[in-house]
């Protein structure tokens, strides 16, 4: 990936991420997050993980974020009025996050510089290569994941379902 492109994407990612946590309006936060995710998807593609990048866009942006949007609408969230959180909490939180950031960066710097991008095999990151890994080495994990999703679906339905008495009124809404 060319340097300029990377710098642009990185800056965009950081800015939009900051937008996620700094804005007051949940929908704006969500939009910022969507932007971040797309940006990261592009970074994936730039790193040769083409399939994963597109999947990130499809699943994350196309589905999960919409879910967030729905919930925000369902709860009819507006701009937060009161300043959020306890000041001490904020202070320590900021300190902690900063410390963690410093440490992580140190790691990255200390890490054995794999600058020499190892020459990747042909079709690296293609859907075929991923499927190869997924259905051989990670087969069990794959199956278990399907189970996880099933459980999540059932759990979500069970949790968010309204009590039967008022459920009748709301069907056919929207």
């Amino acid at each position: 990936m060319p340097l300029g492109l990377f710098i642009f994407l990185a800056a965009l990612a950081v800015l939009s991420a900051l937008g996620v946590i700094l804005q007051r309006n949940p929908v704006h936060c969500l939009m910022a997050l969507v932007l971040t995710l797309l940006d990261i998807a592009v970074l994936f593609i730039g790193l040769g993980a083409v399939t994963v990048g597109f999947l990130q866009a499809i699943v994350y942006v196309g589905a999960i974020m919409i879910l967030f949007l729905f919930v925000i609408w369902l709860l009819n969230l507006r701009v937060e009025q009161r300043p959020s959180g306890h000041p001490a909490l904020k202070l320590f939180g900021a300190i902690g996050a900063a410390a963690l950031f410093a440490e992580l960066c140190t790691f990255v710097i200390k890490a054995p510089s794999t600058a020499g991008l190892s020459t990747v095999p042909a079709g690296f990151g293609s859907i075929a290569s991923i499927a190869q890994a997924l259905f051989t080495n990670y087969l069990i994990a794959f199956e278990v994941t399907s189970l996880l999703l099933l459980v999540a679906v059932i759990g979500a339905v069970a949790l968010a379902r309204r009590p039967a008495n008022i459920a009748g009124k709301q069907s056919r809404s929207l």
Partner: protein
Amino acid sequence: MIVPPSWFMALGAVLFAIGVAGVVLRRNVIVMLMSIELMLNAVNLTFIAVSRALGSVDGQVIVLFVITLAAAEAAIGLAIIIASFRNRETVNADEMNLMRW
């Protein structure tokens, strides 16, 4: 010039730290969930960078699993938020303290 993977990792670190800050600083539970997604993606970015550096596809597979996990987590988390909102009429973390001593 070609950007070394470590830069991507550094970017991942930044995003992760931002996500952490979001989880700790924001009261709105939904925004906290968003921040968690942010952290997950930061980690994903690192994974992808490493997989590129090592030329192995495993990192990408793991990212796939993480995405699946994120989907499940979002579904359940949001469902919980809805359920609790029905009872408490709030999405502020510091007002959801039923588990208090």
